[in-house]
């Protein structure tokens, strides 16, 4: 399994995403923002950070990067794509996922260990989880409030496209406690919390996040 991990100037969690891929016995392939091809990878992770500084709006500049044009094209053809935190923001800006991420309702950056409920185990990234399972992973973001209009929210709920939901107090004002969503096809997933920081109880709260990368392994092997 070869998994591309995109690095924009300002990306921070690329090393962590690469490590997570290795923990799942995959090969991490670095992709640079200026690249015009995906080097034959089986899947792509758009990791967290502050791409290009995120000064305008999170992900607003990154979505125009050359490598993103390739990612968008591949995603539309069904390649598994995972956006974590800033990566989720970028996928939303790129319209691969609906809605937008806005400033946390309490206006502070929030770093904490967050319980999530797994609500869809049919995506390319979540088959290893039990439906309804609760997992504990870090959340660390200043603009993680998920917003979408009523129609979009209804569509997401009706089609079970909410993949993860916050358990307990809503950390950032997300509509319907949404932490992560998928596209209609189930190959593209975006979430604000960081599964790649929960792959080893030594450096994370748990290893609950590893399931996402192992799920991908299944998806790629079965493809």
């Amino acid at each position, binding site marked *: 399994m070869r998994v591309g991990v995109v690095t924009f*100037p*300002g990306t*921070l*969690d690329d*090393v*962590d995403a690469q*490590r997570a891929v290795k923990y799942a016995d995959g090969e991490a392939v670095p992709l640079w923002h200026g690249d015009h091809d995906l080097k034959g990878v089986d899947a792509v992770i758009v990791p967290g*950070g*502050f791409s*290009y*500084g*995120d*000064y305008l709006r999170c992900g607003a500049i990154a979505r125009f990067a050359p490598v993103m044009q390739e990612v968008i094209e591949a995603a539309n053809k069904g390649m598994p794509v995972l956006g974590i935190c800033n990566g989720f923001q970028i996928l939303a800006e790129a319209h691969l996922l609906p809605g937008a991420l806005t400033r946390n309702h309490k206006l*502070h*950056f*929030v*770093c*904490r260990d967050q319980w999530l409920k797994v609500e869809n185990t049919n995506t390319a990234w979540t088959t290893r989880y039990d439906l309804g399972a609760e997992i504990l992973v*870090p959340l*660390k973001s*200043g603009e993680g409030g998920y917003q979408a209009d009523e129609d979009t929210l209804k569509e997401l709920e009706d089609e079970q496209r909410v993949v993860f939901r916050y358990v307990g107090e809503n950390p950032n004002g997300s509509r319907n406690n949404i932490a992560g969503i998928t596209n209609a096809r189930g190959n593209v997933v975006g979430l604000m919390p*960081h599964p*790649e*920081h929960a792959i080893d109880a*030594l*450096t*994370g709260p748990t290893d609950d996040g590893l399931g996402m990368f192992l799920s991908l392994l299944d998806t790629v092997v079965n493809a």
Partner: protein
Amino acid sequence: MIDTVKNAEATPDQEQPYKELGLKDDEYARIKEILRRRPTDAELAMYSVMWSEHCSYKSSKVHLKYFGDTTTDEMRSKMLAGIGENAGVVDIGDGWAVTFKVESHNHPSYVEPYQGAATGVGGIVRDILAMGARPLAVMDPLRFGRPDADDTKRVLPGIVAGVGGYGNCLGLPNIGGEVVFDESYQGNPLVNALCVGAMRTEDLHLAHASGTGNKVILYGARTGLDGIGGVSVLASETFDDTAGKRKKLPSVQVGDPFTEKVLIECSLELFEKGVVVGIQDLGGAGLSCATSELASAGDGGMHVWLDRVPLRATGMTPAEILSSESQERMCAVVEPANVEAFMEVCAKWDVIATEIGEVTEGDRLVITYHDEVVVDVPPRTVAHEGPVYNRPIQRPADQDELQANTPDSLPRPDDLLALIKTMAASPNLASKKWVTQQYDRYVRGGTVLAQPSDGGMIRIDEETGRGVALSTDCNGRYTKLDPYEGAKLALAEAYRNVSATGATPIAVTNCLNFGSPEDPAVMWQFEQAVKGLADGCAELGIPVTGGNVSFYNQTGSTAILPTPVVGVLGVIDDVRRRIPTGIGAEAGETLLLLGE
């Protein structure tokens, strides 16, 4: 008109605003003696910032010497670089070297809390980077006035957001720090920032400019008007001509963490490619500091073409360009054959890089501006041979009275439970989650311990699990009662905190925050604290590898509590054997109290 060396020679009696720039009469006289003429505007700007307390350590130098005097060869055995370099470096085994240092950004954070704190983090990170290391984590010892005071309400949220905003965006986990409230910090909060980084021992880079013909390259952000006079309070009249009527120059720098993140990655790639001879970060005193320190530490002279410096503002004078504190800039010395490779790496990262100078024969630092010489000085006199003061020292008259007033006179509580509740709820003991929750402690995936642990711990080597632990501590109230013992206590506390994680303490850094050195009582506190810290280190057998002094922390004539923040670094062979804080998870475990 630009004040050139020629012009200075022709107009020896021209009045100069040296006092407004913070220089004393005799200091100005000494500059004239060194140069055998009056300084140009640009030279004056350079000397005044470099001879400021902040850059020259003129009041503290004679005391800091004691750290060196008390460090034995055995204590020094693991030290690869110590006092005198950008940051201390210690050998932690397996071919790894670790560098760490604390810096203060107290005054800027009072003026503009967010940006002051943010650029404080930015500055210390560049110090670590300049040693050739990858910055790996930050810590932030903070002090505020009373929690309910208006000024605390103004500065605290901004400072915390600034530390977080910059560090989070740089991708450096925050693995610890302090939040302490005391009335004495009202109007003068303390913002100390620590950064720790690691490198392979063979990659250590010291800042110097050697090798005639080598190029001096400035890279990173453009130079603007921000931060001019941050160090020495450049009076605005100086560079204000009535026609131009420039607004009062702000002494506030604005941080751009994205640019710094790119600068880090770019610099690390430059080190890896082996295209750098020497490197220096630009912090307080900007180019004045970088050029004079590089030249002073090298074995030749240096020529700088100031008009080549990429600017962000129009019409900047040479003096302004030299003293600008624009952030996110570095200066490298590069062999001519490597310049092309250097530029390629910078282009990859979209970092502006400009050849602004060259290492020359001889021993002068010559700076030209459009072919006119505006600076011609012996660099050592700017960077390393500034004034040294032996300031008067006087034990405060009320010290005995203060010490006589012991807790014995306090009433004994009879309701212990109520007392515990009161204590748990007091701001200094209550949870600091409100602060730490705004800091990313996970980024880079190497954080093994962070809040609420006694010490932070990061993994350095993913294969072997080798790592380091850090803690910073200081109790200003103890230190006020007895500065010598107080500093020792700070050291002992940090040492214990590091030991409690399972690591073995090996090195010490510090940030000595005090009031005005012109107050003999403050100087006494300072002298005592340095002695206490140094003697404590000798007893424990671990060296002070570097530090920082911040004087003039006071509101009116009232000094802050003497606050010698001590940082201890420990090493652990395998972070999997760390010891987390907290009592065990299972019932029936035994609780032991160690010590007297």
